[in-house]
């Protein structure tokens, strides 16, 4: 650790990831600091606009020899973080495989294909097969809302919609209910249906789903393959995008379908 003191950096606010020096602002998490410094740590349940959550565990790193979630662990001076190692990436691959068999992800036919973070991570981490036996859960599709549809078969329980609706939209439209493998997102309305909830198409909660579980109607497939977010560069090479991505709050024009502008790359 002594080399920090002799380096030209302010040693008080530096730590290392895989031997590389990372500056941080006090209060930042390891993941925030890493993304800002251009270092990629795989993640799914983190979003720069929302409070840390720590449930997907994709971002698990070794901090001074112990396992921890980079999205919830605070950056501290002198920490030595291991991130991009074969062992950690192996573990991440298993976590991805778990998410794939637990839900029902038919990527080739899914509207989110190419814009989906789960799919992008699977490519990035070279997950070639789901490996485990599929659970084939019975989950519902809610197509009742005029602008949004909700297909829980593809939900990965990241609670981004829950947090966005609560903390950004102030509406509490979504909530995770149940426990264990029976957990599921439920909608806050007397009928339990999306159409009777307060959700509108321009809600942050309607834009934030990293997979194809919450989608806008009538815009599917409008962006051709090849022009989607993760088409020409893997997610691991879009650190800038991941660090700055904000939730588009412009309403989606129903008459002239248009995907939110592609950012970064």
């Amino acid at each position, binding site marked *: 650790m002594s080399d920090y003191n002799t380096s030209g950096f302010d040693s008080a606010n530096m730590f290392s990831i895989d031997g590389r020096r990372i500056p941080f602002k006090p209060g930042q998490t390891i993941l925030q600091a890493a993304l800002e410094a251009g270092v990629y740590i795989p993640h799914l349940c983190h979003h720069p606009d929302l409070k*840390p959550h*720590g449930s997907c565990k994709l971002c698990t790193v070794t901090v001074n020899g112990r396992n921890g979630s980079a999205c919830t662990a*605070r950056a501290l001076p002198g920490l030595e973080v291991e991130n991009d190692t074969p062992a950690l990436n192996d573990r991440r691959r*298993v*976590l991805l495989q778990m998410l794939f068999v637990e839900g029902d992800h038919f990527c080739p036919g899914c509207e989110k294909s190419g814009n989906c973070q789960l799919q992008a991570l699977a490519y990035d981490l070279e997950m070639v097969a789901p490996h485990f036996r599929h659970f084939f859960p019975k989950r519902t599709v809610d197509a009742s809302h005029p602008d949004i549809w909700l297909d829980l078969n593809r939900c*990965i*329980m990241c609670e981004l919609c829950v947090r966005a609706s609560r903390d950004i939209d102030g509406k509490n439209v979504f909530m*995770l209910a*149940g426990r264990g493998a029976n957990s599921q997102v439920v909608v806050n309305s007397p009928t339990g249906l999306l159409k009777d909830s307060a959700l509108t198409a321009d809600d942050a909660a309607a834009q934030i789903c990293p997979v194809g579980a919450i989608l806008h109607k009538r815009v599917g497939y409008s962006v051709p393959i090849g022009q989607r977010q993760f088409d020409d560069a893997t997610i691991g090479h879009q650190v800038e995008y991941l660090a700055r991505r904000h939730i588009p709050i412009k309403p989606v024009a129903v008459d002239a379908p248009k995907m939110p502008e592609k950012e970064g790359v």
Partner: protein
Amino acid sequence: MSEVSEFSRLVEPVLQRHQWRPDRLLQILRDVQDVLDYLSDDTLVRLAEELRISYAQVRSTRDFYAFLYSENRGRYRVLFSDNITDRMLGNQALFEQMLANFGLAAGQVSADGLVSVDLTSCTGMCDQGPAILVNELAITRMTPQRVDEICVLVKNEVPLADWPAEFFVVEDNIRRADMLLGTPHEPGHAIRAAITRGRDGMLAEMRIANLRGRGGAGFTTAIKWEACRQAPGEQRYIVCNADEGEPGTFKDRVLLQSYAGRVFEGMVIAAYTVGARLGLLYLRAEYRYLRPQLEAFLAGMRAQNLLGKDIAGDKGFDFDIEIHLGAGAYICGEESALIESLEGKAGKPRVRPPFPVTCGYMNQPTVVNNVETLCKATEIAIHGGAWYEAIGTKQSTGTKIISVAGDCERPGLYEYAFGVRIAQILEDCGASEAMAVQVSGASGVCLSEREFGRRIAFEDVPTAGSFMIFDTQRDLFEVARNFAHFFRHESCGFCTPCRTGTALLSDLMDKIADGRGTQYEMNELLRVQAVMKASSHCGLGQTAGNAVADTVQKFRPAYERRLAQTDFMPAFDLDAALAKGRAITGRDDALAHLDQGA
């Protein structure tokens, strides 16, 4: 119309009692279920309106707890405790007998809405099993005859209050008493001793005593108390963790049943030391039968000025205790999940830091201590830290209560100074044929005979108190499979590795049990376990695969004799999967079958 007024008539008093407080949601749901039998979606919608919170919030809480029901489970809800120790005592045959008697399948409700019979996780009656719960009241020592008697009572719709009292007797079974179990309790003595020492003095004695928490994690109690005392906050809280859910442990049940004075006085002393005004006892649902006597005990303490205002004459020392009832969720033993549950939410572990000592119940500094830990605090108040520190081992001071169950002649509670050898406990309880001991419950470690010389202490074999013995006739594979199913059922579902890993592990164990496992599955068990251990959010997921990993390592033949001698076998029977197709096409000739040998 009349239905609406019926609802208000029954539910209004509950809401009133809880002052329409949303943070009391879990207690409200419990009390509403007591009057309505179950919590329908419509009920939730109305409760959400009354409490001015979202329907989804109410639903999230209801759906999390095993003992809250979204549909009618019958007027008599029978649950058989299904810990491995209940199994060893023959619970399965009794379960089948009762199902047959009612003509029901597991979990099914009888057509007349009278009764349902199902399984539940360990109910903490391992020394007097097989045990059941009827509408959450514990009945121990089930026999075929008792099953028949219960069926008659249910069929005749006899109210539970009129069932034979001996059904509900829960024994203490104290087999070896030391300083805690063997010392008479003089009400108020410990509290007055603490007040005499003063706040700083008491804390100093705690430090000298080096008392470690008895809940399993072994954190130093003095450090916890001091951190809470120093943390900025408007209120401070003392929480007694009586959510004793670890399979095989029942020491807290006995302490609450027969030593409640020490538990509560321990809370008072903690409150005095850290400056808290309210204490909460979180009682697991399985111990609900204790609630009336605990409430009566609290009333007695108030009458003696050991709770309430100016306690024991100390001006300005005000403190009282409330009892909160759990609703069937093992994870609520984890302190931050317990706090979520106290606040009326689903019991999921929080992100830490911040830790409860600085930001706990209602985001205020909170001490969460185990039942046994609080009892120990009374001893330190009376005798002082140095006296206490001299007992036990260097890092594990004092005595420890062990709940012994399984293959032995004398199951029950054994209190020893820390450092006692496993072999000693086995000898004392009359377990001459032991082949393995599972220490500290399903999440603990499985020790084989070679390790019986090891000692119970934080520096060697740490334990929360569970001690399950398996003799040479037992099948350690079935033990591990039982635990795998337990964790699948009890994972909170928050994080990926545990939510999915517990399901994968129990599926793999079932596949091996079906004779469809190979060496491949053996490797998979360890691979999944390693990922769960390294990346789960809390102790549940981190330890859920331990028993499987231990038994794979130490009792390999129990697995190997079940393995199929091929490289891989699918989990399902391919030919059986085609049965539906054969039925639809009306074919059943040889060509419509797969050659299973191929």
